[in-house]
């Protein structure tokens, strides 16, 4: 696998789209966390500041969760890069050439899946560094409180990258695949939100709690694990949120990512290239 990854590195290290999206992503994570910090800080200076009290999202009590959540909003960037890298192979017919030159179909798709995992790990690493910087800058005492959200970020990042691979191997054309991916994310989000509203209605009015139904969709499941960070306002409005059945959502998220892997491999291994 190391040898296969070395070849993938040769493919991307001189690629401008890789460099540009990579820089956007890293700068974006720092910047959006910084903006979040400044916005919450500026609320404190207003009349609403009384609600916020001493809360700071980047105290070590909250920093792992907040950073993971904010980073999770930018996962579309590595996913787009993943789509470009995979569909490029079809556009240039290098998928054929890689096989002709001696890779097996399994090696071809498995190294892409590994690359998706590597991108997710790099995302995690950047989030950890960001969280440490912001956490220590907040002046609070170091803590591992809510560290599990780093794992959910890793899972969410891998889910996004795997969905990107699946869309790429099924659609094969770069622009079309990116377009469909965006539409799918938007559609799932919209339907998910409506189902969540319905879930709240069922729970409050009909006393049937089906949990957050929106979270039962593939991308929303990974999203749903990444609960909106705790804050004083959220706790006041908890009635407006659907119940999260944590273990169910986690099981679904893992099942969906397994499905994406199985389906992508099957497509490459079984069909003509």
């Amino acid at each position, binding site marked *: 696998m190391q040898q296969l990854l070395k*070849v993938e590195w040769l*493919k991307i290290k001189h*690629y401008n789209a890789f460099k540009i999206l990579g820089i956007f992503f890293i700068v974006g994570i720092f910047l959006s966390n910084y903006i979040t910090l400044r916005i919450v800080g500026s609320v404190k200076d207003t009349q609403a500041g009384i609600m916020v009290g001493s809360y700071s999202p980047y105290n070590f009590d909250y920093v792992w969760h907040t950073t993971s959540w904010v980073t999770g909003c930018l996962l579309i960037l590595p996913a787009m890069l993943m789509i470009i890298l995979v569909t490029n192979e079809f556009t240039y017919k290098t998928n054929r050439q890689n*096989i002709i*030159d*001696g890779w097996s179909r399994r*090696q071809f798709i498995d190294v892409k899946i590994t690359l998706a995992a590597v991108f997710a790990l790099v995302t995690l690493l950047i989030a950890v560094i960001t969280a440490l910087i912001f956490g220590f800058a907040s002046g609070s005492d170091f803590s591992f409180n809510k560290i599990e959200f780093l794992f959910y970020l890793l899972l969410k990042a891998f889910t996004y990258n795997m969905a990107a691979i699946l869309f790429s191997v099924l659609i094969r054309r770069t622009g079309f695949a990116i377009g469909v991916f965006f539409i799918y994310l938007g559609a799932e989000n919209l339907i998910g939100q409506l189902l969540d509203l319905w879930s709240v209605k069922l729970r409050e009015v009909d006393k049937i709690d089906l949990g957050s139904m929106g979270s039962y969709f593939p991308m929303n499941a990974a999203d749903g694990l990444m609960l909106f960070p705790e804050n004083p306002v959220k706790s006041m409005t908890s009635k407006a949120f659907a119940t999260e059945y944590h273990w169910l959502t986690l099981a679904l998220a893992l099942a969906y990512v397994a499905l994406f892997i199985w389906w992508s491999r099957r497509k490459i291994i079984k069909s003509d*290239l």
Partner: protein
Amino acid sequence: MAILSVENLSKNYGHIKALKGISFSVPKGSVFGILGPNGSGKTTMLGIVMSILKPSGGGYKLFDEEPRDEHRKMIGTLLETPNFYHYLSAVQNLKITAAIKGHGEEDIEQVLHTVDLYKRKDSPFSSYSLGMKQRLAIGAALLGGPDVLVFDEPTNGLDPVGIAEIRSLIKQLAQQGKTIIMASHLLDEVEKVCTHVAILKQGDLVASGNVDEIFVNDDMVELGAANSAKLKELINALPGLSRTKEEEGKLILYFPPGTANLESINQHCFNNGVVLNHIQVKRKSLESKFFELTNS
């Protein structure tokens, strides 16, 4: 040893039968031409052998063994189009090829010299002309000095000088004892370079074997008579006869392409007192064989 043997190979695209159960084998050290018009199944056949297409039936062997991924690493292949990363240079692309094949990078420069791309080695592939892309693909096939080369329409997109260069390169490689499998729709390309040939037509194998046997350049006329000794004597007087040969009691006359005239041969023999009991044109000429293929 057979480098490649294809057994009853077929491939369907829906209702279209691209290959209809073809079998042949490529002997070691041969320059094996696969000849046929566009759409005859040449690339489909090579695509299956290179594992990028799944056969609908039949199978094939490489180096007399069940095909493995390692076999393809031992073969240099250019299939259909030059397939490279557009944003990378020639050198960067060849490094990828070398890494996949499991070779070192030491012969990249030498290969770039061979295909005359050294001066442009650091330009991105997207800036290359069609001919340069084709030459890079041939260069990639040469990496690591494989003993077997597969070229699908190798002179596609090349100018006349480039075509001559690639043909002499292929001849050179053949002289080094390498086995070359070459698909082409260009008759004279196959005629000039190949030792063996398989002819495909709409997914069928029309003929395969030694080039000299398949493409007989001269017109061949087979004669037979009760008095064969006298027949042998008198045919020497026939105008335009290039040579004769005796085979299974029959006499074979060779004439320059298109000049054999059965009527005048018959007349000549009859006038000289020999009555023929057999007269037949034995094989079609190169040109007519080609038109038979491409015109239908």
